[in-house]
C-alpha cells in the first residue's frame, strides 16, 4: 500500500519537474515553427496552426547569424581548451604539493568566481580599447578564462585528491618521469573531472551575454547571445519572435550534442579497482 503511494508520489513529482523544465523549451520549439502572421496575431495559441520551417531557412541565410555562430564556437572552444589545460596543471599542484600560500590561491580563485561580471565591464572596455583588443576573439577569451578557471581548478583538485598517491609512485618506480606519471596515469584517471570542467567552462562561454555585448562592436567577434539582441526586425513594436525562437533552438542544439557526447566519458568510479575494495 505504502509502496504504491510512494510510486505514485514519485511519478507525480517526476512529471511536475519535467513539465516545469521542458515547457519553456517546448514552447520555444513550437514558436520557431510558427510563421510571422501567427506570432504577430496578438495572442497566439500554443501549437502552431500551420507549422513551417520558414524561420530556419531565414535565419541560416542570415550572414550575421552565421558569423556569430562561428564566433561563439571559436571563442568557447579556445577558452575551454586553454582553461582546462591550465586548470589541470594548477589543480594538480594544489592537490599534490605543499606550498606556502596554497589556501590564499584557492580562496582567491573562489573570490574571483564570485566577483560580479558587470562590475568589470567598464574597466575592461576601457582597457581593451587602449591595448587594441576590443572587438576581437582574444578580448572575450581572456575574461572567459579568468571567470571559468576558478571553478575548473576547484572541480579538478577535488578529483586529483581522490586519486591514490600510490598510483603515481608506482608509475615512478616503474620508470616514469613525473611528467610521464602525470600524463599517463593521473590525467586518464582524472578524465571525468577534466570533462566536467570542460563542459562547465564551455557552457559559461557559450551562454555569456554581458561581456559579449559590451566588448564587441561588429559581427567580427560578436557571439550568438549578443547577436540575438540585434534581431529587432523592421518594426520595433513587432519583434520577429519566430526568428528569435528559432535562433534559440539552434544555439541549444550544440549544447545538447556536447552533453550527450561527454556524458559517456563522465563515468563516476573510474578509479574503482585501483586499490583494494
Amino acid at each position: 500500500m505504502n509502496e504504491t503511494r510512494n510510486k505514485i508520489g514519485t511519478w507525480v513529482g517526476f512529471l511536475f519537474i519535467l513539465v516545469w523544465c521542458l515547457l519553456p523549451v517546448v514552447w520555444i520549439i513550437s514558436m520557431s515553427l510558427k510563421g510571422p502572421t501567427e506570432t504577430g496575431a496578438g495572442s497566439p495559441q500554443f501549437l502552431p496552426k500551420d507549422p513551417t520551417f520558414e524561420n530556419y531557412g531565414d535565419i541560416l541565410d542570415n550572414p550575421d547569424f552565421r558569423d556569430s555562430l562561428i564566433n561563439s564556437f571559436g571563442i568557447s572552444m579556445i577558452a575551454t581548451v586553454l582553461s582546462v589545460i591550465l586548470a589541470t596543471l594548477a589543480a594538480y599542484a594544489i592537490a599534490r604539493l605543499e606550498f606556502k600560500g596554497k589556501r590564499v590561491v584557492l580562496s582567491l580563485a573562489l573570490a574571483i568566481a564570485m566577483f560580479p561580471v558587470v562590475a568589470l565591464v567598464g574597466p575592461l572596455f576601457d582597457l581593451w580599447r587602449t591595448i587594441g583588443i576590443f572587438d576581437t576573439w582574444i578580448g572575450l577569451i581572456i575574461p572567459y578564462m579568468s571567470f571559468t578557471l576558478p571553478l575548473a581548478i576547484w572541480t579538478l583538485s577535488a578529483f586529483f585528491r581522490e586519486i591514490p598517491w600510490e598510483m603515481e609512485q608506482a608509475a615512478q618506480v616503474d620508470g616514469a618521469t613525473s611528467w610521464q606519471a602525470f600524463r599517463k596515469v593521473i590525467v586518464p584517471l582524472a578524465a571525468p573531472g577534466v570533462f566536467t570542467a570542460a563542459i562547465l567552462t564551455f557552457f559559461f562561454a557559450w551562454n555569456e551575454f554581458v561581456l559579449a555585448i559590451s566588448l564587441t562592436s561588429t559581427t567580427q567577434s560578436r557571439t550568438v547571445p549578443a547577436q540575438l539582441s540585434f534581431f529587432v526586425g523592421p518594426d520595433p513594436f513587432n519583434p520577429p519572435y519566430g526568428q528569435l525562437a528559432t535562433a534559440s533552438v539552434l544555439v541549444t542544439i550544440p549544447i545538447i550534442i556536447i552533453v550527450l557526447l561527454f556524458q559517456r566519458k563522465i563515468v563516476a568510479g573510474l578509479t574503482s579497482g585501483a586499490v583494494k575494495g
Partner: protein
Amino acid sequence: MAAIDIKNIVKKYGDGFPAVNDISIDVQDGEFMILVGPSGCGKSTLLRMIVGLEDITSGDMMIGDKRVNDLAPRDRNLAMVFQNYALYPHLTVYENIAFPLRLAGASNDEVDKKVRDASKTLELDEHLERKPGNLSGGQRQRVAMGRAIVRDADAFLFDEPLSNLDAKLRGQMRTEIARLQKRLGITTVYVTHDQTEAMTLGDRVAVLKRGVLQQLATPRELYTNPGNLFVAGFIGSPPMNFVPAEVDGTSVKMPFGTVELPPEKTANAQGKGLLIAGIRPEHFEDASVKDDAPAGSTFRAKVDVVEWLGNEAYAYIPFEAPPEVQKQLTELERELDGDQMRTQLVVSLDGASRIAEGDEAEIWVDASKIHLFDPTTGENLTVDESRAGRIPEREDPKAKEKAEKMADQGEQVHSAEEA
C-alpha cells in the same frame, strides 16, 4: 641483480619525528630479507627510502656498488609491489604489466613476449584483457607482481603485499611469492607486520622497533635466540610466556615453582635480583603424557581454560606478578600492539592430554629452553651469541643507545602534538 647495503640510515620527518634511527642492514645478492615490526616501527619508511619515494636524512643507501641516495625512483631499477597493489585502473591487465616496458621504450614484440611470459608464470593468461576493477583480490595481487617481474629489476620490494587478502589466499600467495623468489633468485626486501610471514619467507629477518634495529638473524636464530625481550615477544605464535623469576645458583624460582637450569644459562644472571623468564608455550608439556619427564622440572598448577585443537591444546594458567615486572610486561604488550590484560601462562599440550578446565595438573617444563631477561634493559642474559645473528646492542652498545635516544625524541614530538 644486486646487493642492497643500508648504512646508518636515518629518517627524520618534517615535524621532527624520527621514523628510522641509524639502521644498518646488508641485504646480500639474491637474499630474501624481511623487515618486520609492529605498526609505526619505520619498516615501510625504510623500504620507501630504498626505492626512493622517501628522502634519506642521513646515511648511505647502496645498491650494487652505487650510492643511490640522490637518484630518482626511476633511476634505481627496482620493482615494487604496493600494499594496495596500485594498479592502473584505466589500463587492461596486459597494459598494466606492460607499463614499465613501454616506458622503457621496448618494441611491441618484446613487450608481448615478456608480458605473456609473466602472465604464464602468474597464471593470468585468461585475464589479460580485463580491467583491474573486475579482478579478485588475489588476481590483482598477481597483476601487481607481474608488473614487477617483467622488468629485469635489480631487486623486488614488497610493502605488506598480503595484508589485504583473506587468510586462506594469504597462505597460498605466501608460498607463491617464496617459490617465485627462489626461481628468479632475485634480491628481495619484504615488509610485513606479520611474524608468520616473516618466519616462513625470510632468509633473514630484521626486527625493528621504533625505528631501531633490534636483531637481524635467520628465522631459526630469532626463534631460539632472541636478543631481547621485544624480539622474544614478537616472534612466535602463541607468544612466549614471560614470568617473574629469581635466580639462585642454578635454580630459578618462578611463581609456579622452582626449576633447575643448566649452569651456562644462569652464568650471566647471577646477582641481578628480579628477572623475567621467557618460556615458549611448546616447552611445557602435560607431565602425564611425557614419559621421560626428568624430575625437578615439573610443577602443579590450576588450569583456567583449555582450548583443544586436535593436534594440540592450549591451556591457560593465571599467575600473579610483582608490580615492577607487571609494569615491564604491560609496556612490552603496548610495544607489541597487544592488549593482554592478565598475566597468564599459555601452555601448549599434546593433543592426547586429558587435562580439563579447572583441573589441578602436573606440568613439565623444558628447563634448557628457558631464557632469562633483564627487566630494566630487556636484554637476553641467556643468548647464545654465536647463533643469534646480529644484535646491535651487543656489537656496539653505545650506537644502539644513541638510536634509542633518537627514538625517545619521537615520542616527545608526538606527546607535544597531543598536548
